[in-house]
């Protein structure tokens, strides 16, 4: 039978009645809040009518009578059962010297300024760390490069499988669709000039020089950089990276190099697939919408598009791959022990690698144009 708890007061005499348990917490809380504070010290307290009591109720009682009173419950209320006194005494002793933690008052303007400062400093630190990490990876590459015994071939092949082979279908599909879209765009714009035949050149130029590598790189940044960060981040949280270090192994050599090298092999291949598939998409639109036959399409490709466009596109792939992999791994190393931190750094690694890829691609486009390549 349940009986809500309450406080019965007659003058200076308090009687605690009923169930003081979690379900009645809110009601009891209200009753306590209505009472003036620090008045109870002089009164006598009768706990014999108290029925059920749990830790929530005990916490409320403690607020009413004070932790010290509970700590001395054996002298104050010896008539209570020993088990109940034990609970109240334990609670009283635990809370007797436990002041509530101090809360620093907020200063809005100051906090905003501090936050901006932290962010700016954070961006600067991030770039410094990235440069430092690139240096470390290159040094490890040089150190192991001439010692084939230390190459992690198994690990690298596994990474090639995950980052390369498994990404092939999605890269092919995506570039195929974008190729078709570019061809449609070209056909629409060039129709006004009566030169729809140049759609072929547009698709070929776009995919050989830019879109093949850019789309593949962005896909890998979303697909693989995040995977690297999450993998290494989980290892960091689980202290696996520390274990690697204390075993006298180098995490960069063991974990980062296979990933970086696998990416540098993967991205050029994916880029090549992307170029082919994009041009195929364009060719299909040309065939269906512009009545340019496949043979004619190929003939125009052969006649108008020199090899150097293909090379310009492909040359960017290893550099993008290196940066994506390095950023993914570095963000993984930066994870600290919380689930939230894994999320933050995974986001950061994808954003950073896509940003770097597009920025570098823009710079490269300018450079190649000025050079006339």
């Amino acid at each position, binding site marked *: 039978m349940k009986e809500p708890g309450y406080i019965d007061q007659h003058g200076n005499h308090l009687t605690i009645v009923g169930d003081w348990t979690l379900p009645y917490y809110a009601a009891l809380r209200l009753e306590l809040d209505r009472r003036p504070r620090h008045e109870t010290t002089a009164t006598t307290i009768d706990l014999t009518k108290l029925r059920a009591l749990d830790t929530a109720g005990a916490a409320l009682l403690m607020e009413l009578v004070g932790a010290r009173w509970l700590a001395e419950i054996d002298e104050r209320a010896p008539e209570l059962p020993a088990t109940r006194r034990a609970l109240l005494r334990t609670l009283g002793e*635990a809370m007797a010297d436990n002041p509530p933690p101090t809360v620093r008052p907020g200063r809005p303007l100051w906090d905003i300024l501090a936050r901006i400062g932290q962010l700016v400093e954070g961006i600067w630190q991030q770039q410094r760390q990235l440069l430092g990490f690139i240096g470390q990876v290159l040094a490890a590459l040089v150190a192991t490069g001439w010692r084939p015994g230390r190459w992690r071939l198994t690990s690298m092949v596994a990474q090639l499988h995950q980052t390369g082979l498994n990404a092939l279908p999605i890269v092919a599909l995506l570039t195929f669709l974008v190729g078709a879209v570019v061809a449609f765009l070209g056909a629409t714009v060039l129709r006004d000039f009566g030169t729809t035949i140049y759609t072929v050149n547009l698709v070929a130029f776009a995919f050989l020089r830019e879109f093949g590598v850019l789309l593949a790189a962005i896909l890998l940044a979303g697909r693989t950089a995040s995977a690297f960060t999450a993998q290494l981040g989980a290892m960091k949280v689980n202290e696996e990276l520390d274990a690697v270090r204390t075993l006298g192994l180098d995490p960069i050599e063991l974990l980062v190099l296979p990933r970086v090298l696998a990416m540098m092999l993967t991205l050029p291949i994916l880029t090549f697939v992307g170029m082919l598939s994009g041009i195929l998409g364009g060719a299909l639109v040309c065939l269906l919408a512009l009545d340019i036959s496949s043979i004619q399409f190929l003939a125009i490709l052969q006649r108008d598009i020199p090899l150097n466009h293909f090379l310009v596109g492909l040359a960017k792939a290893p550099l993008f791959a290196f940066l994506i992999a390095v950023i993914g791994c570095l963000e993984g190393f930066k994870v600290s022990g919380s689930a939230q931190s894994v999320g933050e750094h995974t986001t950061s690694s994808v954003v950073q690698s896509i940003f770097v890829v597009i920025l570098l691609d823009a710079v490269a486009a300018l450079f190649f144009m000025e050079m006339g390549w």
Partner: protein
Amino acid sequence: MNASREPLIRVRGLVNRFGQHRVHENLDLDLYPGEILGVVGGSGTGKSVLLRSIVGLLRPRAGRIEVFGADFQQLPDRARSQVERRFGVLFQRGALFTSLTLQENVALPLIEHAKLTRTDAEALARVKLALAGLTGEAATQYPAELSGGMIKRAALARALALDPEVLFLDEPTAGLDPIGAAAFDRLILTLRDALGLSVFLVTHDLDTLYAVCDRVAVLSRQRVLVADRLDIVAATDDEWIHDYFHGPRGRAAHRAAHSEESP
């Protein structure tokens, strides 16, 4: 002592297999109201798997698990959630929410289930943390900033948050210093005596077994070999049990327990 009473949790014919690996075959176990049941067994005998099966985190291959008189696996989701609220679970590695402070960790079930306001819940959470032995500034820290022992204490505070009727503890004293472990044992006893808790305690700590357990269940060869009072279990004729209770550590814990009782 509890033979006349209805068990709170009744496990019958439990079967758990992972692929070809058989963990439990036809395992039977009872947990009676108000008792502290110690579950021991060698590494890999499925102590944690048993705990996870009972609290419903793992669906057993076969068998029946009755909790508070109802078949736990057949319950609809709502009723199941009601039952789960009467459980408090302390996981082996704490399993605190890493993106919340300790007091938020403990306050979360209070806000979600007991519908307390945030201020009330956090005040109550600080009391529970203090009860588990964490005072002062620790309440506002994040799990990543704490030692393993402190995480254990905070996890106990969260397990106690809703004042559960059954407490499942998975190796609670592992990683605690001896003083902390002894205080932990005392706290479990105090809580059991005052609140009438039933405790399902998976442990390797012989001192804990001698100090707090009413009954001990030994897991071996895919089932519960014996479940009874400690002295009866220790006298069971089985090689593993003999090595466990009469090895150097077992003897030391036995002596310690008896020297505490006699003066």
